[in-house]
């Protein structure tokens, strides 16, 4: 299991593909991989956003991210897990977070990946400050419930 806090643009598909390539001992053992990629949107709560700054608490961040993966592995049959999270200045359409879970069967991969995202959002010490196109900036006060209103 690996976590990584990244201060530059990264390609989640490539990083996960490379990481999987290195899982030589698990070849033929995992039947399921669930990857979640969180990307920066250019609007939030009806305001246009041109960028954001993601502050974090160095060292505590890595410790909490690893705890998220460990808790998931305690609850489900997880063969391996990878968690990447950006910090610093981030612009629309850039990836913010990637969580990948490898397991024998699909249910474990889906549930563990979802769980890690929810744990991360409530426990990992990251704080988003949005820069609006109006020139204002504001701290994001709380997370959304994760669903869009269905029309």
């Amino acid at each position, binding site marked *: 299991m690996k976590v990584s806090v990244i201060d530059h643009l990264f390609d989640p598909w490539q990083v996960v593909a490379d990481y999987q390539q290195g899982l030589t001992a698990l070849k033929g053992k995992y039947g399921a991989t669930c990857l979640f990629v969180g990307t920066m949107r250019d609007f939030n709560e009806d305001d246009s956003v041109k960028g*954001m700054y993601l502050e974090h*608490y160095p060292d505590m961040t890595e410790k909490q991210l690893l705890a998220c993966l460990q808790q998931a592995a305690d609850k489900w049959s997880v063969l391996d897990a990878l968690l990447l999270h950006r910090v610093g200045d981030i612009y629309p359409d850039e990836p913010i977070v990637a969580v990948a879970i490898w397991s024998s069967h699909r249910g474990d991969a889906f549930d563990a990946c979802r769980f890690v995202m929810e744990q991360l*959002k409530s*426990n990992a010490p990251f*704080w988003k400050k949005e820069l609006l196109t109006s020139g204002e900036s504001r701290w994001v006060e*709380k997370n959304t419930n994760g669903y869009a209103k269905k029309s």
Partner: protein
Amino acid sequence: MSIKVRYFASLKEQLGRDEDNLEAVREYTVSQVWTEVNPGQAMPDNVLIAVNMAYVDQAAVVKDGDEVAFFPPVTGGER
């Protein structure tokens, strides 16, 4: 030695500083640490607290050499 007190994000901006050092003349609870370094100022309602990078509540004991952090609700992940 001393107790290092750290602040992050909006709380850091409100206080106008990112850390304090408290000479540890005795053991403190987390809420006593807050009062020592922010006299006359109430701890924000929704503040999160970590001692040595592990979450704790206000009653937790802080010793010489510990690092205490106060910060607002976290907002990582996608958006």
